[in-house]
């Protein structure tokens, strides 16, 4: 599909459109509705210069293709976006990755998808092809619309191309395991966070804390000696971190079973120092304490309240019934800005309507 065809289609649309790549994240957010508009014809890396630390790709480019290319040059997306199985066999596209705004285990240390977006090309509801941002790290010309596309779930327009910062692969990694209960793990993670240690990812579940160190050889070695714990060989640790990243590890497999049985999987985003949340059900803790996965039969209001009471928020990640709403409701002034912003980019209200919030 050529850009001008796409532009005309978006300009003339008066009924809901559902932007889709591989459909690997259809489960995420409110239920998708509307006529499918596939981005898969927008396929290809349009610019990649390893020494400039950026890659540009059309929205429908498979994430796996881009990551394979980066790996050839010893680089990566440092935010480790999760990859989910899609209906068409794909595991997600670059456009979907940005639109969903999900980041993986290294997020607390290295930043989110949002933090790595440098530029985006977007078609708005007037069918205009708009370029925001660029390919350089420092760019303060105009409002930072490209970064606001991250996590927007298609509300503001169709992303046709994105430019993302890439980083070199670390020279060394090491994984350490500690037998810690939850409270001990949370305290340790926050204490270590204040020290100059090369901690790149963490995961606590079921009485064990795993830490991934990454950086220069000497720094990783010195930190491993300082921290103690049991060293998990890299060939054993790597599949664990990949499974965690893609939500395919034991915890998430168990969560999916529980969800099939009527429980709900929540993503709680909290201040990292929040003490152990006494919620009924299994919890997996990432991001140094700042992201907690909870699989629980509890009423949604109780989970939302638990998150809100400590200054965080709860997202209903997987459930058979999402009738209670997926995302934490917004304050009145924020909701008003959301409505006006949506109308500004999508005057006919046809881009993924209701996917972020019902009535948006």
């Amino acid at each position, binding site marked *: 599909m050529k850009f001008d065809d796409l532009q005309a289609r978006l300009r003339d649309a008066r009924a809901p459109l559902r932007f889709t790549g591989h459909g690997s994240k259809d489960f995420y957010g409110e239920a998708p509705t509307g006529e499918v508009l596939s981005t898969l014809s927008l396929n290809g890396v349009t610019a990649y210069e390893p020494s400039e630390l950026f890659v540009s790709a059309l929205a429908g480019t498979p994430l796996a293709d881009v990551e394979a290319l980066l790996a050839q040059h010893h680089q990566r997306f440092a935010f480790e976006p999760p990859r989910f199985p899609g209906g068409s066999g794909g595991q997600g596209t670059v456009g979907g990755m940005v639109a969903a705004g999900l980041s993986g285990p290294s997020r607390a240390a290295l930043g989110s998808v949002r933090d790595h977006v440098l530029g985006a090309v977007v078609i708005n509801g007037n069918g205009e092809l*708009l370029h925001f941002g660029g390919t350089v790290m420092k760019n303060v010309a105009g409002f930072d619309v490209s970064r606001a596309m991250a996590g927007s779930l298609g509300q503001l327009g169709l992303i046709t191309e994105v430019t993302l910062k890439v980083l*070199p692969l670390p020279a060394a990694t090491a994984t350490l395991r500690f037998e810690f209960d939850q409270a001990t793990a949370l305290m340790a993670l926050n204490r270590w966070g*204040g020290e100059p240690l090369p901690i790149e990812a963490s995961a606590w579940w079921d009485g064990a804390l795993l830490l991934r160190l990454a950086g220069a050889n000497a720094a990783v070695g010195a930190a491993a000696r300082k921290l103690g714990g049991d060293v998990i060989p890299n060939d054993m640790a790597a599949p664990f971190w990949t499974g965690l990243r893609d939500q395919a590890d034991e915890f998430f497999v168990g969560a999916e079973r529980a969800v099939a049985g009527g429980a709900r999987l929540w993503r709680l985003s909290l201040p990292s120092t929040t003490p152990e949340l006494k919620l009924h059900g299994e919890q997996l803790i990432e991001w140094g304490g700042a992201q907690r996965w909870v699989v629980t039969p509890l009423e949604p209001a109780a989970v939302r309240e638990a998150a809100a009471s400590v200054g965080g928020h709860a997202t209903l990640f997987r459930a058979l019934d999402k009738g209670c709403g997926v995302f934490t409701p917004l304050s009145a002034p924020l909701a008003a800005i959301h409505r006006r912003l949506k109308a500004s980019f999508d005057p006919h209200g046809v881009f993924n309507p209701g996917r972020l919030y019902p009535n948006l």
Partner: protein
Amino acid sequence: MNAPVDLATRRAALVAALAPLLPAHALLHHAEQTTPYECDGLSAYRQRPLAVALPETEAQVAAVLKACHRLGFPVVARGAGTGLSGGALPHEVGLTLALAKFNKIINLDPLARTARVQCGVRNLAISEAAAPLGLYYAPDPSSQIACTIGGNIAENSGGVHCLKYGLTLHNVLRVRGFTVAGEPIEFGSEALDAPGLDLLSLVVGSEGMLAVVTEVTVKLVPKPQLARCIMASFDDVRKAGDAVAAIIAAGIIPAGLEMMDKPMTAAVEDFVHAGYDLSAEAILLCESDGTPEEVAEEVERMEAVLQVHGATRCQVSADEAQRLKFWSGRKNAFPASGRISPDYMCMDSTIPRKHLATILLDIQRMEQKYGLRCANVFHAGDGNLHPLILFDANDPDELHRCEQFGAEILQRSVALGGTISGEHGVGIEKLDSMCVQFSADELEQMLSLKRAFDPDGTLNPGKQIPSLSRCAEYGRMHVKRGLLAFPELERF
């Protein structure tokens, strides 16, 4: 424009509306009181506001905003006034909302590694307060001794360590403030993300056009145990540019990677006597920070790359005093330039770093073309250029040539795939250059975005995003002179 009587009437109306809301000393409207607020760091543009409000509480901010909103008065928020693009230039019929009294550090949380501070707290004051905890706030614009965190939010300020530590946006969790209508609002959260659209991305760098910020939660990071700096000389700017790209290509992300050309090196050496190599065509400063093991390893790797790419001299700082000495010249590029020329205009564009040598050679050609000298300092690691064009403002022809020179640098930067502003913002200074970088549709979308936050368009109107009629009128880039106030301040 407005006749004096009209202005006087409007001023009286504004003062009458605000007087009941503020202590008498917090509302300034006589000329001698408002003149100190007539410009920010870009002193070539001056405009006295109708009045200046200096609220002391958030309730007063809300009340002032509500009153101005009801009566339709524009509001321009202001921090320390160190901005370099005129973002805090007052509005002729508006109120300047000076937030300097919001200068308290509310809370430092060593365990969470966050600081909750009022908007008027100085950038450096955060790091100073956090120092006993072994923590600091990473973004370090060189005006950090004076600039406020609220202003940093407005500009998405950078500094010399952005490549490794990110911009303001990457180091801020949450901002609290008020809508143009005086309603309290929060963007972001104390967690790492917030529900809904990522409005924090829009608010950071919005130059006071979308909301008024009164409180900020920033991330603090552990202070590196050690930092060492390599000072490398090159006999050819192309080799220096290639060495920069090669360091990145080798998988190294230096804590700082700066470049100075020969004229700048001569100017700063005369000023600070840091022992720079005056015969070099270009000097690179490459900094490594982290654990001692990490730094030793990285310094060794960087030195090897620099040698391979033709460095004629490499010196590694032996101790902290020497490291600071290496940096002293780089940090004093502005005052040093002030000593060798009556005036200078500072440009601020970003280009892909592989084009560093190209643009440096282009600038050398432009020096011939316009008959003016230019000294260059670059944040080479992220391709952010700060050419300083030397001229004499008393000579109208020199001023004119300087403007043309600057415009050509910005145009060239855009043509090389870069941007017209890396970190100083657009403000009033670069409105016309925005017309070069963005299409009419893109600008209209940004103006429409502003209306989503500020439907009546009274928050800092006329800044950052040019109207389409303005672009039509100018038709091309037309760069205004960037004379600076506070010439003694370190910049960049």
